[in-house]
């Protein structure tokens, strides 16, 4: 489990995040929602340790997150960033292979690479140079890489190691068409079924409704609402979160209800 306790992040005098608490439990899918500038990505970056000068505490399995060695973390915690810039002409399969870097077995993982690329539907692109792929294709290649980090439970963790696996996704479906969007979220489901704790920062409320177990809504750096997925079918919550007028909020709430029932 990852527990975020009273997390605050300041940039100058401004609080990007203010006293945010949340938890990431094995097997559960948490969607982090909110308007632009709410601090969603900042929260994710704190958990991935990309931001390390935060106030408050983040505990990974009862030890402070920053105290875990980077390599151990990399074998249990995989992060899919919002955007990856790669202009050098690596082939797609080489990019995916880098996901095995924490284990050092890139050259012996042909089968795993193939499976991962099949799962995200990029196996047919394996020899194409990464910079020439479309935005969506690149995202799926990155996802395959990220998943490879936690593809299997880490049997070498030992009792002192990290026991669970965690997957952090930062708007990983933003460039994808609906078919691929749902395929990816189904993939995340499969990982969750295996016991992986999944946190996904999202923009698309409907997608969250169709996928998440738990919801965390941030607004202006603070927690607006957190709880079960039913939260999304409540019009007043949506209205407050996104500053929508009531009619629009109710419409979205109804749609989300349908997604909830669709599951």
């Amino acid at each position, binding site marked *: 489990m990852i527990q975020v306790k009273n997390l605050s992040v300041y940039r100058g005098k401004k609080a990007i995040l203010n006293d945010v608490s949340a938890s990431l439990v094995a097997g559960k899918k948490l969607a982090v929602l909110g308007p632009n500038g709410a601090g969603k990505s900042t929260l994710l970056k704190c958990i*991935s*340790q*990309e931001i390390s*000068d935060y106030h408050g505490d983040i505990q990974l399995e009862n030890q402070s997150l920053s105290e875990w060695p*980077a*390599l*151990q*973390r*990399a*074998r249990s915690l*995989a*992060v899919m*960033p919002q955007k*990856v*810039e*790669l*202009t*050098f*002409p*690596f*082939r797609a*399969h*080489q*990019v995916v292979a*880098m*996901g095995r*870097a*924490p284990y*050092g077995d*890139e*050259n012996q993982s*042909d*089968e795993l*690479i*193939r499976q991962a690329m099949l799962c995200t539907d990029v196996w047919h692109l*394996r*020899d194409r140079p990464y910079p*020439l792929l479309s935005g969506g294709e690149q995202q799926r290649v990155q996802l395959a890489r990220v998943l490879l*980090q936690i593809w299997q439970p880490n049997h070498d963790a030992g009792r002192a190691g990290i026991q669970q696996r965690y997957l952090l996704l930062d708007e990983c479906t933003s460039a994808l068409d609906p078919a691929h969007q749902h395929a990816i979220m189904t993939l995340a489901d499969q990982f969750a079924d295996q016991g992986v704790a999944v946190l996904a920062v999202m923009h698309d409320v409907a997608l969250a409704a169709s996928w998440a177990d738990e919801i965390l809504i941030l607004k202006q750096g603070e927690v607006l609402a957190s709880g079960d997925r039913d939260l999304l079918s409540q019009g007043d919550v949506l209205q407050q979160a996104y500053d929508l007028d009531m009619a629009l909020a109710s419409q979205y709430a109804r749609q989300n209800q349908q997604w909830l029932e669709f599951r």
Partner: protein
Amino acid sequence: MQLARRLSVLPRVQFSFAWQVGLLVITFIFLFLLALASGPISMDVSQVLQSLANALVGADIQSQADWVIRELRLPRAVMAMLIGAGLAVAGVVTQGIFRNPLADPGLIGVSSGAALAAVAVIVLSNSWLAFWVQLTGTFALPLAAFLGAMAVSLLIYRLGTINGQTQIAMLLLAGVAINVITGALTGILTYVADDQQLRSMTFWSMGSLAYGRWPEISALFLCVLLPLLALPKFSRLLNALLMGEAVASHLGFQVQRGKFILLAAAALMVGAGVAVAGMIGFIGLVVPHLMRLMLGPDHRQLLPASMVCGAALLLLADLIARTWLAPADIPVGLVMAILGGPVFLLLLMQQIKTVRSS
């Protein structure tokens, strides 16, 4: 069918890599022997092999030909290999850290620091730096150039590192600023220099492998060979860094420590090279590009290939420098520029062609 498709992923790359590196190594050995066999004084290959054998067993000098090969050409060839390899690999490392195929080790201030120190010794050896010349004797210039290279690189690194985090953008800006300052100081020294000093400076800045002595070559071994042997371990970090430092640290790499070691290694190799041989440009830019076009951007192949190609290229340039206008000796940096400029242009046009056709 699945097996065939799987096999098509990696083995094809490995096969071509082995073939190409094999070719490079053969070319390299050929060039080494050619370098020992060529020069203003004509020499045949059997003499070269004999002398090499003598040198390896440490036999006494047996003839003038033997002496020419062992005392004049061999040190030069060894210097060419070490400096060429060092400059090429430093180029690869710099391009990886700055995530830019146009990056050059000069960005981290190594060359400008060395140049400033060298020019200072040339111009001030009779006045302000007389104590230095007294202290270090004939090694005044190379030692000063090396220290200058290290000092300026360290300064730029410190400026670009905030709270223990080296930020590439800051590093770049610091490099630009410091390079401007060292350039200005060098300019002032140029202004007060007399004719003879000006000529010395000009020749130093054109680079030459003719004046390396065995103590300097031993220092080169230390400063170039050791980093060269240690760097392949960082191939995977360099690969990951190309996707950004965030991704690299997500993958479990020690990014800050890695960047420091990589930058230090690059500074050491280039600093030692420039200190001993003066400015030799283009290798750090052209060789990584060439190797990337031939072998792809994976550093596990790029680093060793660049090492071999850089050494071979400088051997070739030095060979031309010695024989083209014999008995005069052209500065090798000049030959590199004459070779490097058109080659770089060719690479650029190749790049444009491939971008247009895709």
